[in-house]
């Protein structure tokens, strides 16, 4: 790591935010676990421990120190990530035998899990032949927040940012990728087969360079004589296995993200200037859509209220603060508390949210049908025996009003901290 200490605002706020899941690890990483760390590297390279700051109070009230180094001070999570980062070996590929270009989605300015899987796959393909290692090139656009390029397995980073690249600019981006095709002559192009980003760009590039892309790829077999890949076809009902083409649009979990090497992520540039662009698609900007009123079928996070909600104002406020889309059981709709288009269930909308939070909903079969394809269900209910609790991944038994208002307090607090940092 470089010697320059850079202040990372995100980490800074995580450090102050005790509720953040990465709180402890960030603290440790920043060496802020406590006023003074519990252990440190002595001048001779020997690990030193402050006996007052390590260990925990055992059941008999006696202090115990766990020599495996796992146990931290009571109530404190071990600073695992520091240790993990230190185990990464740095890899430098100075003279790559070939290039593999990955065009990650960079949703929210960061490498997504899908991007990392893809980079993992690219790494595998690049490192297949140890004697003729290839370099993984990532081409990224616009303003970004990512800073762990190397850890994700990127050898070369081509970062282009200019105003015309913000928003939806597929034609411009394709011009850039075409230029990269000419200059780098990549052996493979890898895109995440996501609905907007890579899925769109990858197909554009594939037709531009006249290479029939393999799409919805979930498995790449590098061991066979000629490398082959398997992707979904016929809307997911078929597997198509074929020789690996030059352009690959792959699904999430197509590869394992890089975890134990760190790469150079050396910045590179295009040599030739880009030809002048004819803009045929103009981005007029985002349309403000209130999260609470997003179509239920498209919502990612739904706060749904039922007959057990007493304080509807509180409920609406919670939805607003959480940025959740509002849903309802039929009883809540029948009783006039919610609009009809908010009903979830057999006779309402079938939802596909990542998180579905059911507040005061008993979990009648007609309701549960509607949330079949939700990822995680949170239930807040007074009755521990109700069917919603059985369906839920996390159930909190208690009064809906109280729990929601506590939740609102916390989230408001987080937002406040966030504003302070910003």
């Amino acid at each position: 790591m470089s010697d320059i200490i850079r202040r990372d605002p995100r980490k800074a706020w995580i450090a102050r935010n005790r509720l953040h899941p990465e709180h402890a690890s960030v603290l440790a990483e920043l060496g802020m676990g406590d006023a003074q760390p519990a252990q440190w590297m002595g001048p001779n390279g020997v690990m030193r421990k402050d006996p007052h700051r390590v260990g925990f109070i055992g059941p008999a009230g006696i202090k115990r120190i766990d020599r495996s180094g796992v146990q931290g001070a009571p109530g404190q999570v071990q600073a695992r990530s520091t240790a993990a980062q230190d185990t990464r070996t740095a890899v430098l590929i100075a003279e790559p035998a070939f290039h593999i270009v990955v065009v990650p989605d960079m949703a929210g300015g960061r490498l997504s899990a899908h991007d990392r899987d893809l980079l993992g796959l690219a790494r595998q393909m690049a490192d297949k032949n140890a004697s003729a290692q290839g370099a993984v090139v990532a081409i990224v656009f616009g303003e970004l927040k990512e800073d762990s390029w190397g850890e994700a397995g990127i050898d070369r980073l081509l970062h282009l940012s200019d105003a015309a690249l913000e928003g939806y600019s597929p034609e411009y981006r394709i011009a850039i990728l075409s230029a990269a095709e000419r200059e780098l002559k990549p052996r493979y192009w890898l895109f995440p087969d996501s609905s907007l980003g890579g899925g769109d760009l990858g197909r554009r590039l594939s037709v531009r360079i006249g290479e029939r892309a393999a799409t919805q790829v979930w498995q790449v077999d590098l061991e066979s004589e000629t490398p082959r890949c398997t992707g979904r076809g016929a809307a997911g009902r078929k597997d198509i296995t074929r020789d690996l083409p030059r352009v690959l649009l792959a699904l999430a979990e197509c590869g394992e993200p890089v975890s134990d090497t760190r790469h150079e992520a050396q910045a590179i540039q295009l040599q030739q200037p880009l030809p002048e662009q004819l803009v045929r698609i103009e981005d007029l900007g985002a349309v403000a859509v209130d999260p609470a009123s997003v179509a239920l079928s498209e919502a990612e996070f739904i706060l749904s209220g039922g007959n057990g909600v007493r304080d509807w104002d509180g409920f609406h406020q919670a939805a607003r603060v959480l940025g959740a889309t509002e849903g309802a059981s039929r009883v809540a709709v029948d009783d006039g508390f919610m609009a009809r288009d908010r009903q979830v269930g057999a006779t309402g909308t079938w939802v596909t949210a990542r998180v579905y939070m059911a507040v005061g909903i008993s979990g009648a079969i007609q309701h549960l049908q509607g949330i079949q394809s939700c990822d995680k269900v949170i239930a807040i209910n007074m009755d521990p025996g109700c069917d919603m609790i059985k369906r839920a991944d996390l159930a909190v038994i208690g009064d809906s009003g109280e729990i929601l208002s506590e939740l609102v307090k916390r989230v408001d607090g987080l937002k406040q901290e966030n504003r302070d940092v910003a």
Partner: protein
Amino acid sequence: MLNIILPVLIFAALALAVVGAVRRISLWRQGRPSPVSLLAGLAAMPRRYLVDLHHVVGRDSYISNTHVATAGGFVAAAVLAILVHGLQLESRILAWALLAATTSMFVGALFVAKRRVNPPSRLSKGPWMRLPKSLMAFSLAFFLITLPAAGILPHGFGGWVLALLLVALVVWGLGEMFFGMTWGGPMKHAFAGALHLAWHRRAERFGGGRSTGLKPLNLDDPNATLGVEKPADFTWNQLLGFDACVQCGRCEAVCPAFAAGQPLNPKKLIQDMVVGLAGGSDAHYAGSPYPGKPVGEHQGDAHSPIVAREGKALVDAETLWSCTTCRACVEECPMMIEHVDAIVDMRRFLTLERGETPNKGAEVIDNLIATDNPGGFAPTARMNWAADLNLPVLAEVKRTDVLLWLGDGAFDMRNQRTLRAFVKVLRAAGINFAVLGNEERDSGDVARRLGDEATFQSLARRNIATLAKYSFRSIVTCDPHSFHVLKNEYGELGGEYVVHHHTTFIGKLHEDKKLNLRGWKGGKVTYHDPCYLGRYNGEYEAPRAVLRALGIEVAEMERSGFRSRCCGGGGGAPITDIPGKQRIPDMRMEDIRETGAELVAVGCPQCTAMLEGVVEPRPEIRDIAELVADALIEQADAVDATAKKPQVEEALA
């Protein structure tokens, strides 16, 4: 003077009545053809009137007696008046008979008038409020003018003032009773009603018969409009039937959708069809409106669409989609009008021609087409619930005594409990049965009631073809909807089967002493009659007999048996889900609560789902199969235990 005027008046009125009749008949003839035997129908009419119609009217003895007096009196009076005053036959006997007839009519009219003093809301007002007065005018006038003929009063009594007064009364009476009967007035019901009875589309209904299956739609002609778009698309005898309505509102009083505040009133619907066949607006309708829809905003004629694509026409689509097809209206209608047929006919057009099945309707139909079940489940998963039961499947065993038809409840976790219970009962009784397993498809009930006759016929034909591959004596099912369709609606497509509902079957098993049942220990129990078992198929007794066999004394609801109130689950109503002020199952749960029952026994997966959808706390809902399965004393256990003993000893030895 009266001697001259009266014949003129009477024959003028008769002539006008003929004109009116010709017009009315030509209105009906706008409808599509329908094969009925005109003469045989006319011949059967008096019996249908006296027996079948009065069987229904007789449920309300007040109006039944009133009607006998008034209508009987009128018919006699009319005939005698023509003889005595029209043809001037000099006969004391006839005159006295006429006096008696008019007296009877007058007394009847008094009772009609009494009913009209504070009429229940189901009765229409408007011209119907005038009717008792018209009846009185007619009977009084003819009574008075007959007095001289009977020799009670001298001729010319009262002078010209009274004569003029009497003439005025006679004109009023004749106008209402003769001309109004055919041209259109409250008395139209007599003319149209009589002919409707004669030429009813479902002759099987009369003489104690039952005809509840929907009529198939001919899909052979690709250029024909499917279903009813315009009033003229009904058959002529359906139009005639609408015209017979007396606006008694008995249908309105029992309609669950109306009570729930959904925009449907069967009486208004029939009246709208009358408006449609003659042309005009509903502004003159003087009864309860469709809840939430003011009167006077709709109009139409025989050749314009009933439901507008946009805006308003004769009827709004949601009115048609509110119906649960519970047949309560048909059961109550003294004029034997077939509301459900009409509603489904109009739905057929909306679904098959316009593709406007509301809410989840389109999705359910798509599912039925693509997966053969309304929920869109994999057809190969139909038997998943029974993976541990080792049910014999017909594809393997080829023949069986009893084919257990599972219905789509096989995909529903709640109903699977009922099916398991019934399987347990069948096994305890040692019945040789089998299932179609994954070869079974939805019976087509929902598709048909949503108006999708094409999907119904496709499902039905494929089911019939599957059934034809195997040999079985009878079909038994826990689902009254499948039961009804298999029993009453597959016949016309070539599938004739002996079909039993599981309660009937269990009842027989009990009679045959094949079940050994423990006595009931729980609390008070009531029973909810499913529409498709009760009104559609007349099975009221078997479920009660089974409950009795369990030692349960059913605490009957006020509305039970043929008057049972629908749970709200039929006819695709939960799918189209037209909003009202309250929910039908909530009202039914109120009926249940009123009996003080802790448990309601049901015999239909749909009723179970609807009633269990009522928010707790509420009485428990159990299918009769479950109650029986719980009460089984399984000798098998005892036998098994003894059979196992020697083995254990062997093992020990």
